[in-house]
């Protein structure tokens, strides 16, 4: 390709809160991980492998957060996932049999069976149950750029009352990145793209070269950004900030204009777990017997109607092709216009939650693959890149301070600071102060004291997960989120008191170490 007129950087943010309950044989919230593995992470690895195999020029940026990395690497969760997958495949075999006289649904049943069998082969045979080396290999091949994230996806502006807590979130997050991926990260995903002036200092200290922020975080930067959203700025701390492009986001996110709402795509809510005979789906349900979604869905969106038509694979594939072409065409027009206006090649940064692709939007991974193939061969206006590569090619940038912002609803803190969840912060702030106090009081701990200090750090970090406040605000699994918050604060508080009193409970410590087993190599002195 001759010199492109501009660049497109797709960024996928893959994150789940740390959910692992060895104390229960099954726990529903662990299904979040199983669904994401089946519907998003394995399909993403598969498409990246296919593009690599076919030597298709492409670039993609992904964040894999520390809680997700820890869960993907966990042998208990890996075995539970395999068991979950086997149940699904067994169910699909029955579905193939049940629908043998119904052409439309039979074809779908066969599709799901074969699809899940392939997922299982990929999980067990190709990756031996651990997907992380697959992502690592894609990064080593050069087409995937994986960026780091905060330790437990803490909402940093609301933790900044004690800036050591923010620094610890950043540093533990980067340490975990190094542990799993074997290199230093160049980029960082601020949780919820939540930026406050000064947070970049911790990123710069940790060697981060760039991070991403919401659109108005860049547009309202001081001084005003010369290139708007279409080039990064350098913060005074020496870290570049890239802003989310609104245009490309709308095409995917918007329920009116966005592709995922197309009537030929699979409907998310019509699921076999609710549609089919209870005894027939019972093997897929939790032990308590309540109906849950299975991921086996037979209907398409059809329209703004409760009536749904059967999902048609061919129609969906045709739309995937059309929508990939449309997205590419729109980026061509956008970048042509931007290039005429700017005196340097523009970069259009398009970040999305990774789980949008495959989980919420079933056809999403296929759309991604089609898009990258089309971009490589069907146009010459722009090239795909990563923020890191763009910085290497365009190292001179405007110095400016981004504006306080997030990509949450209404653009600031409201989702994580509302009547439903504001009660958590006095506890989080006190716990952070106490953790710093412990780190200073025990500068060179060993043995059980060190274990207790490290566990206190884990409990604090787990309590700081922004997922709990988010869930409380949205009113979904509120009990679970409240319980997680309270339990982690309470465990931290007990550790704090026991350490100060010099009276540790070895059996209790061992039990919570086995349960809250994230960050096995954490060093509590990150809070000094």
């Amino acid at each position, binding site marked *: 390709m001759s010199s492109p007129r501009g660049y497109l950087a797709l960024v996928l943010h893959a994150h789940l809160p740390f959910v692992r309950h060895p104390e229960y044989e099954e726990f529903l919230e662990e*299904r979040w991980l199983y669904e994401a593995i089946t519907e998003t992470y394995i399909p993403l690895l598969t498409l990246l492998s296919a593009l690599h195999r076919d030597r298709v020029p492409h670039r993609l940026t992904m964040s894999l957060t520390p809680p997700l990395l820890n869960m993907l690497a966990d042998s208990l969760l890996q075995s539970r996932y395999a068991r979950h997958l086997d149940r699904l495949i067994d169910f699909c075999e029955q579905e193939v049999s049940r629908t043998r006289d119904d052409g439309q649904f039979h074809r779908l049943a066969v599709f799901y069976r074969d699809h899940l069998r392939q997922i299982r082969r990929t999980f067990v045979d190709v990756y031996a149950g651990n997907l992380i080396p697959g992502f690592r290999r894609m990064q080593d091949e050069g087409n995937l750029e994986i960026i780091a994230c905060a330790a437990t996806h803490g909402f940093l502006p609301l933790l900044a009352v004690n800036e050591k807590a923010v620094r610890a979130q950043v540093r533990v997050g980067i340490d975990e990145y190094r542990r799993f991926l074997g290199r230093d990260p160049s980029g960082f995903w601020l949780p919820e793209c939540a930026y406050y002036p000064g947070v970049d200092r911790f990123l710069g200290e940790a060697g981060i070269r760039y991070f991403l922020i919401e659109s108005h975080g860049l547009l309202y930067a001081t001084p005003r950004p010369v290139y708007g959203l279409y080039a990064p700025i350098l913060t005074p701390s020496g870290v570049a900030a890239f802003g989310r492009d609104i245009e490309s986001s709308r095409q995917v996110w918007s329920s009116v204009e966005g592709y995922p709402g197309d009537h030929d795509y699979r409907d998310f809510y019509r699921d076999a777990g609710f549609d089919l005979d209870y005894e027939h789906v019972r093997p897929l349900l939790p032990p308590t017997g309540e109906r849950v979604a299975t991921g086996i869905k037979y209907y398409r969106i059809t329209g703004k109607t409760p009536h749904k038509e059967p999902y048609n694979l061919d129609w969906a594939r045709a739309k995937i092709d059309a929508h990939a072409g449309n997205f590419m065409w729109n980026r061509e027009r956008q970048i042509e216009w931007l290039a005429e206006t700017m005196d340097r090649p523009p970069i259009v940064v398009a970040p999305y939650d990774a789980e949008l692709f495959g989980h919420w939007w079933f056809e999403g991974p296929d759309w991604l693959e089609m898009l990258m193939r089309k971009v490589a061969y069907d146009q010459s206006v722009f090239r795909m890149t990563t923020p890191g590569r763009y910085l290497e090619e365009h190292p001179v940038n405007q110095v400016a301070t981004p504006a306080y912002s997030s990509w949450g609803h209404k653009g600031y803190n409201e989702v994580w600071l509302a009547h439903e969840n504001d009660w958590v912060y006095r506890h989080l702030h006190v716990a952070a102060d106490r953790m710093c106090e412990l780190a200073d009081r025990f500068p060179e701990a060993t043995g059980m004291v060190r274990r207790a200090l490290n566990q206190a750090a884990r409990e604090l970090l787990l309590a700081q997960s922004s997922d709990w406040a988010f869930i409380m605000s949205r009113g*979904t699994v509120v009990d679970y989120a409240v319980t997680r918050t309270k*339990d982690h604060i309470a465990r931290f508080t007990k550790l704090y008191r026991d350490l100060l009193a010099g009276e540790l409970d070895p059996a209790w410590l061992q039990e919570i170490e086995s349960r809250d087993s994230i960050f096995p190599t954490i060093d509590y002195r990150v809070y000094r």
Partner: protein
Amino acid sequence: MKGPSPKSRPALGEVAVSVVETAVEIASSVAAAGQGVFRAALKLYRLAQGVVAPSGEDESMPGATSRPARASGSAAAASTRATSGAIALDSDAIEPSLTTAHGAAAGLPHAPTIEPASGDRAWPAADREIPSTRVSSRLDLPGHYDLDRLVAVPRDPDWLFAYWETRDATRRRLEARLAGQGGAPPTKHGLRIAILGAGGADTETLNWTVELPPGATSRYVEIGRPSARLRVSYGIVVGAGAAFVPLLPPVEVNMPSRELAPEIDARWAQLGDHGLAPEPAPEQPQERLREISERLIRHAHGANAESSREWPPTHRLVEFDFGSHASPRS
């Protein structure tokens, strides 16, 4: 049209019996195995999401489901805590739910967090209630920590959130001081908000006191001044609001901006080994840079307004007829 068999649900009583039987079975196996295991009813959910405009306009969509009603009673609420010495942990009180599952959507905890424009349907649209994992912590967190502390953070450019706590000793000292000055015991507390001058000046250009209801420990305060620099204090309102006596050291808060910075005084650099290394500006006069900036920013804002679009409105699929284009390359 033929399709999957109609669903049949167990009656509520059958669910209850099933849960009890399961719980008894588990209790037996728990006792035998010496492990603490407890079954729970589970909750499925969905999350609403939408798109945020850079101007901060409220484009929210209703979407989040209301909380499911709590089931009355539970068939096997008793903990199956093992008698053989398993460690009693804090959140082992998990109760099965008798809420009838009449359809729900499993979903990850984070639906896409960017929300659709006002008027858009919630995406993906949910048409079901969601059953619930009923877990509860055995623990209550302390109501206070015996600290003197005031924390104030912005919620958005217009609203501030503050919480505070004072030690009893701190309050008693103040009361004694006021009594020594012949004053009545304080009965009101409040937050004092001061707007500080521009450019880091310490002078107060405006201030007011927000009286608080008795027992309040936090408050949202409407400031209505994006980008303002504030000094927030917590203390006692004395007399008829005539005087404010601080109980805690004040805190300074910078409210977020909601507008373009007025200046385009662009400085350029690249990252060197020792921080930013200044670089010469692009060979463009300042006015040209301002023009570029305004055009690009107008375009970015205009992504939410058709009238500002400067290239063909191609993003709407309904307006893009693939039949009229041989291929994206043509």
